[in-house]
């Protein structure tokens, strides 16, 4: 027990508290900027069982803040790479790595295996899924989120307290709110917020009074100011969630993350469909194989007409409507979509060129 002696010396922890930590089971969703410090401190503290779920791979641009990884982890799955590093930090605990995305099909069964859920994700879709699944399984959620120099922290769904939806009932529908991987972030900010999340987890485990429930803590790294905002529980909303199956929230993609494809490359691909989302009758008209036209305004109700086995090359006139169509397609699990550079005019020009 030498490993935990500095904890055991604390009156608030002691031998009994350390046993509580050893018996705790914590699931960390997202092993990125927030997840790394959470995992490090919970591993070091001796949390008995840790789950890590992340389907992402370690990239060079992560290393500025995701301190569990090194250059030797590049290209590896984050959950697996984190587990490897953490097992060296503390071999006496059990660590489960799930190299998949949290989804409506695995969330409930996974949450049931753990007693506390940590939200360290980087997208709204998963944040709302965590919230709803935690309400259904009655698990507290230690929430952290960051933007550039600012962080938010709270504990939701703790002892029947307010949930994330009591603060933000629905995901935002403006693309600017979506976290682009291109948005900058001060490297130390997720370390601050993530360490505060680890602190809240330990307070819950040790039953220390003062868990950050019913309040949102807003931290600004530039000014070092902290604002606490009170959140009231929305019973009606929570009851709605309790009485409906988990739903997949529509999550907008950062438009810069939409994959673009050139006409030449698109035409060389096998098993693709060219999906034209312009209104009927717009010029130039296209005559080609594997072509389908569904105007953007009608796409949501006509998704069943689209072949799910093909790659989808989406096009319009200028490239904006096709981006919007791709958002809708991705929200509906059409994951293999590309935006055609140059749209219909470029495609027509290439087809004419090829015909000569």
């Amino acid at each position, binding site marked *: 027990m030498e490993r935990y002696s500095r904890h055991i010396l604390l009156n608030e922890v002691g031998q009994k508290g350390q046993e509580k930590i050893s018996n705790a089971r914590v699931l960390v969703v997202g092993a990125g900027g927030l997840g790394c410090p959470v995992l490090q401190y919970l591993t070091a503290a001796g949390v008995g069982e840790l789950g890590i779920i992340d389907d992402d791979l370690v990239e060079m641009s992560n290393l500025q803040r995701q301190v569990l990884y090194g250059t030797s982890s590049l290209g590896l799955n984050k959950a697996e790479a984190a587990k490897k590093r953490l097992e060296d930090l503390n071999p006496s605990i059990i660590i489960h790595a799930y190299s998949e995305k949290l989804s409506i099909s695995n969330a409930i069964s996974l949450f049931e295996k753990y007693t506390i859920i940590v939200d360290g*994700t980087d*997208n709204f879709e998963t944040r709302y899924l965590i919230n709803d699944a935690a309400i259904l399984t009655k698990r507290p959620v230690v929430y952290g989120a*960051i933007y550039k120099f600012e962080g938010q922290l709270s504990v939701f769904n703790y002892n029947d307290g307010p949930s994330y939806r009591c*603060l933000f009932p629905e995901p935002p529908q*403006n693309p600017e709110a979506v976290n682009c991987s291109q948005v900058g972030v001060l490297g130390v900010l997720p370390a601050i917020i993530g360490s505060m999340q680890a602190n809240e987890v330990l307070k819950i485990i040790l039953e220390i009074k003062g868990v950050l429930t019913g309040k949102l803590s807003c931290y600004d790294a530039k000014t070092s100011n902290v604002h606490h905002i009170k*959140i*009231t529980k929305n019973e009606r909303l929570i009851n709605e969630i309790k009485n409906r199956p988990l739903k997949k929230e529509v999550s907008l993609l950062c438009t810069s993350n939409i994959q673009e494809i050139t006409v030449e490359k698109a035409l060389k691909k096998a098993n693709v469909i060219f999906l034209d989302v312009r209104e009927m009758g717009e010029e130039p008209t296209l005559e080609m194989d594997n072509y389908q036209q569904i105007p953007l305004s009608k796409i949501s109700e006509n998704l069943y007409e689209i072949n799910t086995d093909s790659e989808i090359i989406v096009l319009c006139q200028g490239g904006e409507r096709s981006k919007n169509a791709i958002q809708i397609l991705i929200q509906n699990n059409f994951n293999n979509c590309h935006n055609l550079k140059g749209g219909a005019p470029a495609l027509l020009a290439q087809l004419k060129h090829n015909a000569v």
Partner: protein
Amino acid sequence: MNINIKYFGVLAEKTACQEEQIDFESGKVSDVMKLILERHPNLKPEEFQVAQNKLIVDREASVDGTEIALLPPFSGG
């Protein structure tokens, strides 16, 4: 009376300030929002929650505080 308006995250960038004062007589939170949106037409009323005196409030609530904060959701992790 003067109300102190605080902007968080992307809202502070859009308004180019972290806080500012607005002169307001009486009315609802939504009336203050109108003044703010007139001053900053690039803000969208659906992109944030409103806290009055450090408590999240409905926009139909009457203004009885001296501080109103606009909080956007953050997705980053």
